[in-house]
C-alpha cells in the first residue's frame, strides 16, 4: 500500500522520543514522556505505549471482519473542503445507510476516520488526538489530492503534504474534490479490504509508534497534549 520506509531518518532529532523500544528491560511496559504537558498534569494521562492487538486470524476473526465491514461508523469530523462531499452521502440520492455507513459524533464509537482533504498543522493536531481516541480496529479513508501529495496546497506553509506520515491510511480517494460516487466506491473498497483482513492500521500505528510520533512532533511545534490519547 505505502512505499514509505519506517526509518527514523525523517524524524527531527530534537523532537524524537526517548529511544525507548517497546519490549523494555525486565519486560515492563515503557513509559511515555508526555512531553507537552506541564508537570502537574502528567499524572492525569496515560503514560503507557499503545500495544498492538492483532492481527488475528481464524473463522471468528473473519466473521468479525465481515461485521466490521458492514457497520462502518464515520467520525463526524470534517477536516477540509472534502468534508462537504460527505453530507450528500446521507441524502436520499446516495443513501450511505444502505451499506451500513453511519455518522457518529464521538471518536469513541466510530470506526472510520474520513480525512476530508487538506490538513493544516492546527487540524493535524486534532486529527491525531481524535485518531488515537478511536477504538481499534480503526480505519482511515483519505479524500482528495491534498491528503495524497499536498494537492493544490503542496507548497503552502501551513498544510501537510502526505497524511500517511502522521497516521496510517487504508484507502485513498483521489480527486479534487472527489464526487460522492467516488466516495461510495472508496467505501466499498474499504469494505473489501476489511473483509480480506488487510486493514490493520491500528496495529501499524502501535508498532511504528515512535516513527509516527516523531513525524507529528516535527510539524506540531506547540505540542501541548499527552503523547498518546488512549
Amino acid at each position: 500500500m505505502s512505499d514509505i520506509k519506517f526509518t527514523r531518518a525523517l524524524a527531527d532529532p530534537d523532537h524524537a522520543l526517548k529511544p525507548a523500544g517497546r519490549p523494555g528491560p525486565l519486560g515492563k511496559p515503557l513509559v511515555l514522556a508526555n512531553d507537552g504537558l506541564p508537570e502537574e498534569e502528567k499524572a492525569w494521562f496515560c503514560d503507557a505505549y499503545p500495544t498492538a492487538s492483532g492481527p488475528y486470524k481464524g473463522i471468528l476473526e473473519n466473521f468479525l471482519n465481515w461485521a466490521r465491514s458492514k457497520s462502518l461508523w464515520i467520525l463526524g469530523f470534517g477536516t477540509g473542503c472534502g468534508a462537504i462531499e460527505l453530507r450528500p452521502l446521507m441524502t436520499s440520492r446516495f443513501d450511505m445507510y444502505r451499506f451500513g455507513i453511519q455518522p457518529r459524533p464521538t471518536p469513541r464509537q466510530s470506526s472510520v476516520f474520513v480525512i476530508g482533504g487538506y490538513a493544516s498543522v492546527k487540524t493535524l493536531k486534532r486529527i491525531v488526538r481524535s485518531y488515537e481516541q478511536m477504538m481499534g480496529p480503526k480505519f482511515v479513508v483519505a479524500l482528495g489530492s491534498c491528503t495524497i501529495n499536498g494537492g493544490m496546497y503542496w507548497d503552502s506553509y501551513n498544510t501537510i503534504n502526505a497524511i500517511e506520515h502522521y497516521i496510517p491510511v487504508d484507502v485513498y480517494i483521489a480527486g479534487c474534490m472527489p464526487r460522492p460516487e467516488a466516495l461510495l466506491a472508496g467505501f466499498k473498497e474499504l469494505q473489501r479490504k476489511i473483509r480480506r483482513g488487510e486493514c490493520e492500521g491500528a496495529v501499524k500505528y502501535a508498532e511504528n509508534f515512535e516513527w509516527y510520533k516523531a513525524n507529528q512532533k516535527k510539524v506540531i511545534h506547540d505540542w501541548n497534549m499527552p503523547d498518546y490519547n488512549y
Partner: protein
Amino acid sequence: MEPSIPLRIAYAFASLAVITVYGLLLIGSMARISAKVQGRVGQPVWQPFIDIVKSSGKRNSISHGVMFWLGPVFRLAGGVGTYMFVPAVLGSVVFQNFSMSGDLLLVMYFIFFGQLGMALGASEGGHPYSAIGVSRGLAQMTAFEVPFALSIISIAVQYGTLDITKIVMAQQGGFLNWTLFTNPLAVVAAMIAFLGMSGHNPFSVVIAPQEIPIGPPTEYQSNLLGMLQTNRAVFNGAKLVLYMNLFFGGATNVPVMVVKTFLIYFVNIFVGQAFPRFRTDQAIRFFLGVPTLIGIAAVVLFAF
C-alpha cells in the same frame, strides 16, 4: 400446572432472548420504514445485529472506573427488570415471565432505574457532552413521567388493582373491554408519554445519535456500547409489552403480541416522521401542558 423454579428461570431466559431479537428487528424495520418515508433504501433490517457484533468485537476498550462500567449494567438491569415483571403473553408458560411477583409500581421503578444508573455511570466518563445528555435526558424523563404516572393512577383506580395480570384479565373478552375504549383519556396521555419515552422525533434531542452531543453514551465504546444497544432492544420490547398489557388488551398468543406491539411502536414513526424535533425546554413545556391535563382529567373521571 405451576413450573418449577429452574424451569421458570430457563423460560425467562428464553423469553428474554425472544424479546431481544424481536426488539432489534423492530428497531431495524422501523429505521427501514423511516428511510422509505424519506425516499431512501435504508439500512438492512438486521443492521442492529451487525452493529452489536461489531461493537462487541472491538479489540480494545477503555474504562473510567467501576461506576462507569456499572452504568450500562444498571441500564441493562432496568431493561431486563421492566420486562421480567410484565407478562408478555397472557396464560403462556414461557412468556409469562415473573409477572406474579411484581406489580405496576415495581415496573415503573425499573423504567426509572435504568436512566438513573446510566446517568451516574455516564457522568463518571467526565465528558461534558455526557453531562449535557444526562441532564437533558433526566429533565425530559421527569416531564413525561407526569402524564404517564397520571394515566397509571387512572387505570389503577379504574381496575382497583396494581397487578398487571389482573388488569389484562379484566380487558379480555372483546376489544370493547380494552382500556383504549373504557378509559380513552388515560390511553391518550400515556401514548403521548410513550413518544417521549422512546426518544424518536419530536423528542429525540436526548439521544441525537448522529449529532455532536450524542447524549449520555458519549464515552461508551466497544462492549459497553454493545450492551447499551442490546438494552435498547430489550427496553423497547418491555415498554411495548407493558403498554399492550395496560391499554390494548394484552395478548393471548405470540402473533397477536407481535402485531400489537408493532402497531404501538409504529405510532412513534408515524409521529416522528411528521414532526420536527423539540428542544428540551419545549419538550418539557409540552409534556406539562395538554398531556398532563388529559392525565388529570382521566384520574378525576374515575376517582369520582
